């Protein structure tokens, strides 16, 4: 089945969509697509079939998001913890992923038409090599599309992602690109797998579980979190509307909290820069007048920003190279 379901909304759905769009709409929605196996048990079908239905539901949800002007969607497809499942189930999921990503490569024209950019986030070197190669081809082929974005978290956990970001910053420090004192929340965010995306506005988890299961823990600290009891393969347009209404009800208070947090961040960064300037001038004796102090601070800040930008460029280059190398390899069988 296809990644992209064509088709318009029906009359009622269109009315509902227009009403919702009169209010604040999330630009980036993240989904924990939980409940495939319970769905399969409920319908007396094969577990694998449950996962396939789950994938079909994803395609349908993307169509609804497109009609609701939700530009970016992130989904939790496979957690590193899921490797603990039986070999059969893991192999089945890898095979499903293979089929779906190969299908994606076949649908490249359609993806180009809708300008869909596919990104895959996770510790991809945990996956079988051929799957890595197929994924890389899909990512590289859609890299420059910029109308809608689908981020698939595969072989992902948030703790691994945060640790990887710290490792990247350590690599930057080791190579003299940045200093340890340059490390900040903002810099760490820029080193996550999701650095090309804004933080999700809305996080939805289906199947009634009320936990985050190591998904986007850093990025969703100020997101609206909605837990819904429906099983993922049974998700409807109306369930999505319900979650969006929840987002709209929370919008003002969450926005206020976000803005306040942002202000505190900026203040903390300024303080951190001041401390660094003070340390630098310890030997020379502090610049006496406040004008010189201000200049020194501005100069330090500008240098730090430039240093960080250069480091992030290098990091981007390293990551792009990882994907282009993989995608240029012949898929190993």
């Amino acid at each position, binding site marked *: 089945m296809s990644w992209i379901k064509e088709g318009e909304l029906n009359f009622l759905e269109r009315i509902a969509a*227009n*009403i*919702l769009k*009169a*209010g604040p709409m999330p630009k980036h929605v993240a989904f924990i697509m939980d409940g495939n196996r319970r769905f399969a048990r409920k319908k007396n079908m094969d577990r694998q079939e449950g996962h396939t239905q789950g994938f079909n539901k994803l395609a349908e949800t993307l169509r609804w998001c497109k009609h609701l002007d939700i530009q970016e969607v992130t989904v939790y497809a496979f*957690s*590193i*913890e*899921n490797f*603990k*499942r039986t070999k059969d189930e893991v192999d089945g999921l890898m095979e499903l992923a293979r089929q779906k990503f190969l299908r994606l490569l076949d649908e490249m024209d359609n993806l180009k038409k809708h300008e869909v950019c596919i990104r895959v986030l996770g510790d991809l070197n945990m996956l079988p090599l051929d799957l890595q190669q197929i994924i890389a081809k899909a990512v590289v082929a859609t890299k420059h599309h910029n109308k809608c974005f689908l981020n698939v978290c595969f072989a992902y*956990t*948030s*703790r*691994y992602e*945060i*640790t990887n*970001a*710290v*490792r990247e*910053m*350590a690599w930057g*420090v*080791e190579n003299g690109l940045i*200093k*340890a*004192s340059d*490390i900040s*929340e903002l810099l*760490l965010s820029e080193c996550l797998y999701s650095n090309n995306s804004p933080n999700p506005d809305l996080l939805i988890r289906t199947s009634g*579980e*009320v*936990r*985050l*299961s*190591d998904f986007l*823990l*850093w990025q*969703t*600290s*100020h*997101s609206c*979190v*909605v*837990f*819904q009891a429906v099983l993922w393969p049974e998700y409807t347009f109306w369930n999505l509307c*319900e*979650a969006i*209404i*929840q987002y*709209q*009800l*929370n919008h003002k*208070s*969450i926005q206020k*909290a976000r803005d*306040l*947090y942002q202000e*505190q961040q900026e203040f*903390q960064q300024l303080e951190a820069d001041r401390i660094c300037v003070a340390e630098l001038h310890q030997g020379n004796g502090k610049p006496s007048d406040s004008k010189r102090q201000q200049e020194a601070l501005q100069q330090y800040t500008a240098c730090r920003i430039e240093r960080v930008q250069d480091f992030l460029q290098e990091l981007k280059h390293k990551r792009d190279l990882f994907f282009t190398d993989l995608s240029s390899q012949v898929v190993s069988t």
Partner: protein
Amino acid sequence: MALLYGLLWRLLLVLVHVNRAFVCWLRARTRCFKGRLWERALASLLLPVAFTDFPVEQKKNHRNPDSKAVDADSPAERQALFLNDGKSLEKLPVHIGLLLVDEEPSYTDVANLVVWCLALGISHVSVYDDNGILQKNNSVLMHEITQLQRHLLGVEGSKVEFLSNGSEKHVVSCRPVVSVLSPEDGKQSIVQAAQQLCRSVENKEKSPKDISVSMLDSLLREFRNIPDPDLVLKLGPVDSTLGFLPWHIRLTEFISLSTHRNVSYEDLLGALHRYGACQQRLGK
């Protein structure tokens, strides 16, 4: 046309608020009159549960038969009843987080929740608000908690370790712990750990390849020895974690109460019963 949709949207929000209030009222009523099946049926037929947090039952003058522990006559009796209530739960969290997303914290109500949790046998209770108000007024909260413990459980009631910014960070004893947290204990702690690791790399003591999830985890525990919360009780109308311990909450169950103001012991027990029903598969 846009104007019409705008008006319809405002109407929709009003309807949702009305629905929320009605379902809350209905739920509160069915709690008292458990036989009224028709009311419960009506409540479940109404719009999705997603719109309503579990309502907090306002403190009533009449005695509720479930609140034996709180209303018992002597501290010793109360202590025994609390522990009994704790043992009767399906499972008890080792660490419970009280996440305040209400506007202004009420120290008495927060202290109530903390003391009840400790009395039930929960060994680590943390309280958090995203403005850091509780941390700034840490001493007020500590005072309320100590007073309440003394009143409820007597002077012999279990002594508690208080952890907050600047206070003793390493818990040596096996006494129950109350942590007062703010956003600084969340992302900022992770950043501090990252800086420390990178300074080690700068000094050639470590290599980036050495940095692992367990290393980062251990370092964070060194900064503040907080176990991962098993349960977070979100108190208030905002549906967000608002920066609460992002690293630690990977497997935490979230249960919401509409507010912390005038929260009752029954509300806490209700939430703990719901927590008891949560099943974790841990990826499997």
